[in-house]
């Protein structure tokens, strides 16, 4: 399995507090992604990164920010968490040469905002 570690695995936080989720990879892959998964919505892309300090928005980026200061780490921040951000968050990586470079996913972070 691809070396992807998401932390924390579970988190409960209160509305209005800042939250940062971390994705760490040991594959030296260029591309990193954050998805959220909710019942009835499948996987939705929040933000992605195509290199150090290079990021772009996905489908549902409002309320989220990201940073990538090193190849191996991609951080997702909820500046002021809301109950609608209760979800399972998945990080994914890709070598990025398209064919034969599929996405590899982490095991997810379950976030509950009360």
């Amino acid at each position, binding site marked *: 399995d691809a070396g992807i570690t998401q932390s924390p695995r579970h988190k409960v936080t209160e509305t209005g507090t800042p939250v940062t989720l971390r994705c760490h990879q040991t594959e030296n892959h260029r*591309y990193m*992604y954050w*998805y959220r998964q909710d019942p*009835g*919505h*499948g*996987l*939705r*892309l929040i933000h*992605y990164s*195509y290199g150090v300090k290079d990021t*772009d928005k*996905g*489908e549902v980026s409002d309320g989220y920010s990201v940073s990538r200061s090193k190849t191996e780490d991609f951080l997702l921040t909820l500046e002021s968490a809301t109950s609608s951000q209760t979800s399972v968050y*998945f990080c*994914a990586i*890709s070598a*990025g040469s*398209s*064919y*034969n470079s*599929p*996405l*590899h*996913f*982490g*095991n*997810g972070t379950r976030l509950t905002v009360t």
Partner: protein
Amino acid sequence: LAKTTQPISMDSYEGQEVNITCSHNNIATNDYITWYQQFPSQGPRFIIQGYKTKVTNEVASLFIPADRKSSTLSLPRVSLSDTAVYYCLVDRGTYKYIFGTGTRLKVLA
């Protein structure tokens, strides 16, 4: 972005062959088709990828007709452990991967 359409759910019995079809009418010349499998409480994992005709690996086969407007994932002789959600993804090479809602396959004993 290439939009995909899949059945929301399917049921099958153990030992049967399961075919899940994905529609991608606006697929472009350079797009690839990739399928992922997701078990509960896990991230999706890559199953198979193809461009045209037929691709087979140890897990599944992927059939893509000449017009490439659809693709069919074929799982031979499914078992209970194949119960999962299956996603079809059209890879445009932009690295902005947008997933559809997937097909929930339930394998019955």
